[in-house]
């Protein structure tokens, strides 16, 4: 009995219909948290003693970096579930997670670079964390490229799942190596970076933004997966009925509205 939900996960239709009800709630929560967190971070959190106002970028940079990394693991785990239990849905989740993760990695790179200009005086610094993020971005690009290279979608799914798993073994090693490499080359002049103890009044908005980004990630993943489900199940009865209903409701709406107006 306890495993019933897991077996249901094998059914894209069940997932599509179930998540329909979550979407409005998740959208509302995400938007509220994003707005509250941003305004709090931008306007109400105190300025940093050393970095002034430029540190306010932390409220988007750190959550984006969190999700970039967590997103990779979400992608790899869904790929592994697909490989092990031979289910369709996890592959759709994996395929959807790749562009979202790549976009968030890109965001964390760009915001880090913009933050670096007033802090370090350069747009690009070969800092350990930035470098690791860049390599993570390359891993995402490789997985997306591999997925699209195959004619057969099934093969593309499985191949990119294997690559994602190989990546998960490598990511901790890459992070440790880059960290070690950075301590070797670290220029003494730029050591101060933001490690000053962070005040609680700065921490609360950060916490809100992290939760907001997690909610956002869930929302984007749901939307991408649902679109993917429709594309892949386009030959099935239930998708055909769904399309007919949606297209029909659009067609019926017009005369009814026109009639009431007259």
């Amino acid at each position: 009995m306890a495993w019933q939900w897991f077996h249901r996960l094998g059914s894209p239709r069940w997932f599509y219909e179930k998540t329909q009800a979550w979407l409005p709630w998740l959208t509302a929560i995400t938007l509220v948290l994003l707005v509250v967190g941003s305004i709090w971070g931008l306007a109400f959190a105190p300025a940093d003693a050393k970095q002034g106002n430029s540190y306010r970028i932390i409220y988007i940079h750190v959550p984006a970096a969190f999700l970039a990394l967590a997103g990779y693991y979400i992608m790899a785990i869904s790929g592994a579930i697909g490989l092990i239990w031979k289910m369709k849905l996890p592959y759709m989740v994996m395929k959807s997670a790749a562009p979202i993760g790549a976009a968030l990695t890109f965001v964390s790179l760009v915001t880090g670079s913009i933050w670096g200009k007033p802090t370090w005086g350069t747009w690009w610094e070969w800092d350990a964390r930035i470098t690791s993020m860049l390599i993570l971005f390359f891993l995402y690009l490789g997985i997306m490229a591999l997925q699209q290279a195959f004619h057969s979608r099934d093969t593309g799914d499985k191949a990119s799942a294997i690559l994602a798993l190989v990546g998960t073994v490598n990511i901790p090693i890459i992070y440790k190596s880059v960290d070690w490499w950075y301590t070797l080359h670290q220029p003494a002049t730029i050591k101060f970076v933001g490690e000053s103890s962070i005040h609680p009044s700065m921490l609360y908005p950060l916490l809100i933004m992290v939760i907001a980004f997690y909610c956002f990630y869930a929302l984007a993943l749901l939307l991408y997966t649902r679109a993917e489900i429709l594309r892949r199940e386009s030959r099935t009865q239930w998708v055909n009925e769904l399309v007919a209903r949606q297209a029909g409701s659009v067609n019926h709406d017009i005369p009814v509205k026109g009639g009431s107006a007259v």
Partner: protein
Amino acid sequence: MTEVTVPGSAGGSATTFSMFWATLRRDLLLAIRNRAEMVNPLVFFLIAITMIPLGVSPETKTLAAIAPGLIWVMALLATLLSLDGLFRSDFEDGSLEQMLISPQPLYFTVLAKVMVHWLVTGLPLTLMSPLLGVMLALPSGGYGPLCITLLLGTASMSLIGAVGAALTVALRKGGLLLSLIVMPLYVPVLIFGASAVHNAVLGSVINSQIAVLGAFLALAIVLAPLAAAGALRVSSDG
């Protein structure tokens, strides 16, 4: 490794090892017969290194400072370029399918093929590297460490690269994609290999870096053929 004939050992393992040796011998023979292909990565290595003084500066001091990293990066690229052929010919003539359906564990077949790949690319690259070190004015303390790190590093790179080669084996234009997916995975090996040579030139002890490279190799021997075997099963039918 001659315990194959030990009477007490199970028959299964004996056939596994004989299969391993047979694959090793066959691939080595094929590689020696196609000598031209074997030489290409080495020529690439040589030409690419020649470009550096032309593009950067022929000054001894400049070259000596960047020599360890450059030789390492070029060795990495040469390995990368040679990977495409690792499973390609077997895929095209159908012998890969025979390997997939054979009762012998695919792990050892892959391991044998990777070993041959390393013997015909990684090992020659390593043996050639002192020559290139001379061309780039590598300081005298760097030659021994360069050879040791390349010996360990190219083996890891052949193993990791085998996963990428297996994933892209069925793609007609897989070469560039292969580089794209494998190169990020080479980062740790490159970091430790190049910095070990660099530190040796500066006169510090590099035992720990070599130990780390050895650990990478051990990990790669255990995991990479498994992943490559899985990848071959998946990608060869699509």
